[in-house]
C-alpha cells in the first residue's frame, strides 16, 4: 500500500455559557457598577481581606462575613509588557501590543487584581511598588463586569527607584 496522505480536518467549536456571579461576586460587581466602589471581605479568623469577596476563606475555611470598602488606590506587585497580540478571551479581540498589565494590591486588601496599566509600555516607566489608581468607566456605561475598570493609572509625582546595587556581570562561560 502507498503511504497515506496525512490530512487534517479543521473545525471550530463555539460554545455559549451563562455564568452565575453568586452572592459574593454579585454584590462586588453591583457595587462596582452602581457606586464605583470596590469591596473586599475579611476573614473573621485570620483577618485577611480578600478581593473579590468569596464564600469562605480558603486558608481557614470559615465563612467570610465582614465586608470591607476599599479605595481606588493601590500598589503594583508585579507587571509585564506584552509584545504579543494577546486575545482577550472575554471579547475575542486582541489587545494591541505592546501593552502593560500587572497585579495591583488595593490599599487595605491582601489580594491583587490583574489589569491593564495606562502607562508608556517601557520598563523605564513601570516598576514593582509603583502607586496606582483605578480609572472606571463613566457610571452610565458600567455593566457590572470587571471591564468596568478601564485601567490603572500612576499617581502623580512618582519616580522609579534606583535598581538594586549592581553586581559583577557574570561572563558567558559556555
Amino acid at each position: 500500500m502507498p503511504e497515506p496522505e496525512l490530512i487534517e480536518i479543521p473545525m471550530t467549536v463555539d460554545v455559549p455559557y451563562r455564568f452565575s456571579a453568586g452572592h459574593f461576586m454579585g454584590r462586588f460587581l453591583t457595587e462596582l457598577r452602581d457606586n464605583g466602589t470596590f469591596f473586599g471581605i475579611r476573614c473573621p479568623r485570620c483577618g485577611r481581606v480578600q478581593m473579590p469577596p468569596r464564600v469562605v476563606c480558603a486558608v481557614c475555611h470559615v465563612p467570610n462575613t465582614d465586608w470591607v470598602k476599599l479605595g481606588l488606590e493601590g500598589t503594583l506587585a508585579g507587571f509585564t509588557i506584552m509584545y504579543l497580540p494577546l486575545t482577550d478571551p472575554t471579547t475575542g479581540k486582541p489587545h494591541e501590543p505592546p501593552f502593560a498589565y500587572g497585579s495591583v494590591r488595593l490599599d487595605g486588601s491582601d489580594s491583587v487584581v490583574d489589569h491593564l496599566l495606562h502607562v508608556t509600555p517601557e520598563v523605564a516607566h513601570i516598576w514593582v511598588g509603583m502607586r496606582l489608581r483605578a480609572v472606571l468607566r463613566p457610571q452610565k456605561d458600567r455593566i457590572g463586569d470587571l471591564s468596568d475598570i478601564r485601567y490603572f493609572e500612576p499617581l502623580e509625582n512618582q519616580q522609579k527607584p534606583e535598581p538594586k546595587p549592581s553586581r559583577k556581570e557574570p561572563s558567558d562561560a559556555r
Partner: protein
Amino acid sequence: MKRNVAIIGGGQTRHAARRHDVNQVELVNEAVRAALEDARMTMEEIDTVLLGNMEFFEGCHMTDCWMADGSGAYGKPGLKITTGGTVGATIVCAGAHHVASGLFDKVLCIGFEKQEEGDTGAILSGVAHPLYGRSMAGAAVGYFAMMATSYMAAWGAREIHSAMVAVKARQNARKNPYAHLKLDITIQDVLNSRMLAYPIRMLDMCPASNGACAMILADEKTARDRCEKPVWIRAMDSAHNEQFELDWRDVTTQKPIFSKVSAARLYRKLGVERPADYFDVFEIYEPATWAEMVWYENLGLCEPGEGFRMIEKGMTEIEGPIPVNPSGGVLSTNCIGASAMLRVWEAALQIRGDAGEHQVPKPVRRALTTAYGGTNWTVLMALSAAARD
C-alpha cells in the same frame, strides 16, 4: 505506604511541534507500546489503565473512553484524570495509591497532549475565573513574566540569569533523543531572541509539543519477579493553592504556598534535612526559566533569593553537584498532559542508569520530581533505587 510500589517500565514518544503523522490514539499507543516493551509485558498482564491530558485541549472529552483501543484499556477498569499541568504526575500518584492499597498489582499510567490540534491559549484562558481576571488570562507567558519582574525586583537577578537556565535546558536536550527543542544556543542567543512579555523572551519559554509518556507501576512481588531495575516510589505529596492570589508570582510572599508546603511535608515523611545532599538528581516542572530558579528556592536547594546564584555557578548542570533537569526539562519539551509524567520517567531512567547521553555522571540513587499546573498546584515524588531506604 501500605505496600511498596515500583516503576517497572516506561516509554515516551518522539516529541515535536508537528506530529500530524499520527492521530491522538496512535500517539498514545506509541508510548504504551514502548512502555510494555520496556517492562517486557503484554497488555493482558495489566490490571488497570489510568489516562489523562489537559481538559479539552484536543477538543475531546472522555479521552479514556474513546481511546480504549490505543491505551489498552478495553475490558479493564480505569480512570481518566485531569489536573492541569500536574496531570502526568497525578496519574502516577493515583496509580501508586492503587498499587499501595492492594487494589491492583500492575497499573499502566498514560499522559498525553497533542497541542497542534487545538488552541492552547484559548483553552488555558478557561482556567481563569469567568468573571474575574479572564480578560488578561490569554497565555502562561504573562503569568511567568510577572513572576520574573517580582524576582528581579526582590533579589536583583537580571535577564542574563534566566538566559543561563535557557541555555542549560536546551544544551541538555541535545543529549536527549526524545526532546523537542534540541538547540545549540548561547546566552547571547537567548538575550537576542524575540521579547514576548518583558522580561520573558522566546527562548525563556517552553515550546508547544506533541507527545505522550506511559509508565507501568507494580507491587513489590511483581517488581522483584519481573524487573531487573525497579525504581521505588518512596514518597508522594501534593498541595493546592487558592485562586485570585499572587502567591507563586510574588517571590517574597510569606504565605505557606503550595510548593514549600508540599516539599516540607515530603521531606518530613522521608526524614530529609538537606534535600540538595539527600537527592542525587532533580527533574522539575519549569514552563519558564524563572520558574526553575524559584523551584531551587522553594525546594530548599538554596536560600530564598539565591536561586539565580546557583545557575550562575553552574551548580545545576548535568556535571554539577545538584543536577536539575538533565533531560532538558519542560523548557525543551512540553506536551503538557505528559510533561509531569516525563519528569518522573526521566528521574527513573537516571536511577536505572539508562538515561544514555544525558545520564548524570555521578552515582544516582535518589531523585525528586515536581509538577506544576492548575490554580497553582504541585505533585512531588521521591524515587529511590531501594525499596527501603
